[in-house]
């Protein structure tokens, strides 16, 4: 009796293990609903770069307006640069687009931010989906205190990419895209904190790209970097805009002039930020409509 049960258990165990092995080793044998997990695709996830439309956006902290009535449009496959002096709400505006500002409990958002036709500020737009569609890169490079490999593989694993091989492929793809592969392929297991600032920032961009966003928000991505790293990142951004919509905050007017297709000038009035004008880059720099833009671009103000 006992022997029969033991044998039954062992056989059962073997079958179970075998199944797991099959599933792990050969993804082709998986049923389609399991494979879906492995491609980060969501049926609502954007497939192409969307237009980002901001209409009448108000951002306030503790009932004090940080941004008043901002409206602008970022076109698909273009770079929109937000420029302006410190404290004019550029970062608040940027972090409203992926609702990062919501994590501050005193922050209130009102208005409309549309990705194509969906208002991402409405309550029924899931934050998870929004952050899959919209990636973000911060001013200070902030890689996780993990190995270079895990900095990219851990987030996609957390997002449900179960196959280690798929993760490895994805990592190689984004490292190649950001130009890091040749520099780092021999030391993928080193801590990411040992990289240079420029490499760390490109790793952060690669980490964001691994989740396949169609909009990338960049908050002064080069302000902590040297000119050579800055140049590398600028050419990377020009490459990236072929497949996504980029919105970047920058303090560096020359940088905006070099890479932006569109520029929005932000200014402060009585403590709250607003948008002076938003137009094609060459128009902003050559024939600005507002005297504020003119003096800011000439270096007289700000």
């Amino acid at each position, binding site marked *: 009796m006992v022997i029969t049960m033991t044998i039954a258990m062992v056989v059962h165990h073997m079958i179970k293990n075998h199944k797991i092995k099959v599933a792990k080793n050969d993804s082709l044998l998986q049923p389609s609903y399991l494979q879906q997990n492995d491609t980060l695709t969501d049926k609502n996830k954007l497939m192409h770069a969307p237009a980002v439309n901001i209409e009448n956006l108000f951002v306030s902290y503790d009932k004090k307006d940080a941004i008043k009535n901002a409206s602008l449009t970022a076109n698909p496959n273009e770079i929109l640069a937000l420029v302006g002096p410190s404290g004019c709400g550029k970062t608040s505006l940027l972090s409203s687009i992926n609702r990062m500002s919501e994590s501050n409990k005193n922050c209130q958002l009102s208005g409309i931010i549309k990705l194509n036709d969906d208002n991402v500020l409405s309550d029924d737009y899931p934050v*998870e989906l929004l952050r899959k569609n919209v990636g973000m890169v911060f001013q200070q490079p*902030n*890689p*996780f205190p993990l190995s270079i490999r895990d900095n990219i593989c851990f*987030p996609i694993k*957390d997002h449900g990419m179960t196959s280690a091989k798929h993760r490895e492929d994805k990592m190689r793809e984004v490292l190649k895209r950001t130009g890091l592969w040749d520099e780092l392929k021999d030391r993928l297991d080193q801590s990411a904190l040992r990289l240079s600032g420029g490499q760390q920032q490109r790793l952060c961009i690669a980490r*964001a790209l691994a989740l396949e966003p169609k909009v990338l928000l960049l908050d002064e991505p080069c302000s902590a970097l040297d000119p050579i790293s800055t140049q590398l990142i600028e050419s990377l951004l020009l490459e990236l805009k072929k497949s996504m919509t980029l919105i970047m905050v920058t303090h560096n007017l020359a940088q905006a002039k070099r890479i932006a297709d569109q520029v929005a000038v932000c200014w402060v009035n009585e403590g709250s930020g607003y948008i002076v004008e938003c137009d094609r880059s060459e128009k902003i720099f050559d024939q600005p409509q507002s005297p504020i833009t003119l003096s800011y671009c000439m270096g007289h103000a700000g």
Partner: protein
Amino acid sequence: MNNAKLTEQLMCLILWCIALFVVVVPIAMLYELLTQGLSHLSWAFLFSEPLNSGRNGGIAPILLSTALILMTCLSVVIPIGLSCALYITEVCDRNSFIGKWLSHSLDILGGVPSIVFGLFGYVFFAQILSLGFSILTGGLTLACMALPLFIRLCEQALRNSPVSYRQAAQALNLSHSGYILHILLPSASSGIAAATIIATGRALAETAVLIFTAGYASRYPASIMDSGRALSVHIYDLAMNVAGGTKPAAATALVLVTLLIIINISARYFSKRWLPR
């Protein structure tokens, strides 16, 4: 010389005297311990049983009991304390009712005299849960005493983890559990290690709690359900109840102080590694 300068020099002198006093007192204590105890200290003392109420022989069973009490204590303190610290930092809002209430009660518990914990442990673990005078009772009571300190230190370590990691995790929409397990806890690990060591040091130095709960028996403990004598209790007993016990008491105290110094140095080492990144 004007008045302000004179006052300044006087203040300086007073502060210098206070500082000297603070340094001299522990050195005097250590000197006393060394003169009394060093002659009694030997390998045989560390590895043999006490004889004649501790006047002769060594402290081996006491070291064993102390280690068992500490292990019991830590195996309760680390999981409960770490979960509690995670709850305070990650789940509940600092300014909510529960958050404020938790933080107040931790502060009050941290300030409760250890003898009160001893009485509580005696009534609750020894009598109500009928665990008797045992290493288990002693360890659990010590755990109650060390928890507030441990939770506070862990909370500090967790809060010291850079905000930029959390921001990155949010922007990447990582799961909360993934963030805690793979980013937060590893980045706070040296702080948590330091917290563990400091809590161990606190528990090691404790006497009052253990007299009521772990008991006096100076033989080798058979299991954690057996009564066992901790180092600090042994010192207390030798010094107060045994005529001619001063020398072995001093030798035992030397062992205890050495252990505490080692623990403190390692805590310092870990927290140094953890503070500046």
